[in-house]
């Protein structure tokens, strides 16, 4: 699905990331950890073609990301669900409209998707908040809404960048549970987090591979987990 071969990325001075090799197989669950500023977000951006590798190659759904046109990137994003730590929404749209946005922009919105949307909002526990505007939501609600928006199109891959960064432990576990459920449904999941406790909690529920970025390189996480 997503494959990096000796991928590197840098701007200005030296490379931020180098020699990144990883293959996200269908149905796999990966954690990506490392200290703040290590390059986790950059790594994820390479995975959804928001950045282009300055060395090596990144292949997304069989296409070399460096050669993708804008339209091809958009089509690729339609097969992915991305959850950001800062959960950007369109503040003038209701929560329900925001969650349905990936359908709206691809012309798949409307009555037919209404039932799916209601189910999904129930699944993330936000049915009662459907009409709320994003600025009215709590951190946990925003994270769950971002996850719902990421999966509304039934994507093949879910990429989450610090999805539990701004929420309490209880809400983090709930969000983790949702990601595990998605993985059990066959979705490929990659979660970038510096929260080792969350990774330990996940390992009790799912067979996850844990990677670590250190010194600009990717390695399997060691005994600390």
């Amino acid at each position: 699905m997503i494959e990096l071969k000796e991928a590197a990325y840098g701007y200005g001075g030296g490379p931020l990331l180098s020699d990144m090799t990883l293959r996200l197989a269908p149905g796999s669950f990966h954690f990506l950890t490392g200290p703040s500023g290590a390059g986790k977000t950059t790594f994820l951006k390479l995975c959804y073609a928001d950045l282009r590798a300055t060395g090596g190659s990144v292949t997304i759904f069989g296409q070399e990301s460096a050669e993708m046109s804008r339209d091809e990137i958009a089509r690729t994003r339609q097969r992915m669900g991305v959850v950001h730590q800062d959960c950007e929404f369109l503040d003038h749209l209701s929560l329900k409209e925001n969650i349905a946005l990936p359908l709206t922009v691809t012309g798949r919105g409307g009555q037919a998707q209404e039932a799916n949307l209601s189910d999904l909002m129930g699944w993330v526990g936000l049915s009662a908040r459907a009409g709320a505007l994003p600025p009215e939501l709590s951190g946990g609600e925003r994270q769950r809404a971002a996850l719902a928006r990421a999966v509304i199109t039934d994507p093949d891959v879910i990429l989450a960048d610090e999805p539990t960064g701004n929420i309490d432990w209880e809400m983090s576990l709930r969000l983790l549970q949702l990601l595990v459920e998605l993985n059990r449904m066959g979705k490929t999941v990659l979660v970038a987090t510096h929260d080792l406790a969350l990774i330990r909690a996940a390992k009790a529920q799912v067979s996850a591979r844990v990677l670590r970025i250190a010194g600009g390189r990717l390695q399997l996480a060691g005994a600390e987990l």
Partner: protein
Amino acid sequence: MSGLGNILDAMKGDAQADRVVPRRGHSVRLTLFTSAAMAFLAVFALALSMASGRLADRWSEALARSSTIRISAPAAQMEEQVWAVLEVLQQTPGVASARALNEEEQRALLEPWFGPDLPLEDLPVPRLVEVIETADGYDPDGLRLRLAAEAPGAVLDDHTRWRRPLVQAAERLRALGWLSLALILGSVAAMITLAAQSALAANVRVIRVLRLVGARDHYIARAFVRRFTLRALSGAAVGTGLGMVAIALLPSAQQEGGFLTGLGFSGAHWLVPLAVPPLAAITAFWATRTAAFKTLRSLP
């Protein structure tokens, strides 16, 4: 797809898609006001151009079909020369009719300059012969040669030296009207480009979110293009309506007022300003589309 097809495609309503870009900012008022003001001016430019066109045609038509022969001769020979001129004209192909102006008509011509009690019989005023041409016209050089031989005091004035600068002036005025219209459309395009760029810059975050969820640039651009095109259309419709009312309220054409009272539309020409709003919309469509794609390409 044709240009018109692109426009119609972009104008298709999509309530959901319309909502993804927030409706706010000064660009709304700027676009509406600019379109309305420019459409108002465009209606006047059109009126000027069309009035000039009518004037050019009228002068051209009126002066082209008539000419004058002026006869200056001693009093004793005057009548003889007038008859000689009329006889020559009767035999000249291309002359439909010819007649000598009588004293009353000549007095009326001179009255604006010399007053009503002009003693015409005491002044060495030349006699005038009015010549009306057929559609084919006559040969002025041939006529001049014959007049020189038959009536040495006769001078043919075929109005060319009057007609040409007048018609040229009216035609240039008409061209200036069209040039003004083109400049107005150019200004609309420039203002809407600026407003669209400003709106796009103010919505960088919205664009980032839309791209993140898989929106194509075509979709994002269309949301802006549709909005600006409709604003330009509605603003221009208001401006055109006001412009047409203002033109309708101008004094109607009168002989005494000359050109100024003839400024406006006549007959079917009243339909021409109705093309201004669609023209403004087409201009806004291309201006916004160009600005949108340029801005989207520049965003990471």
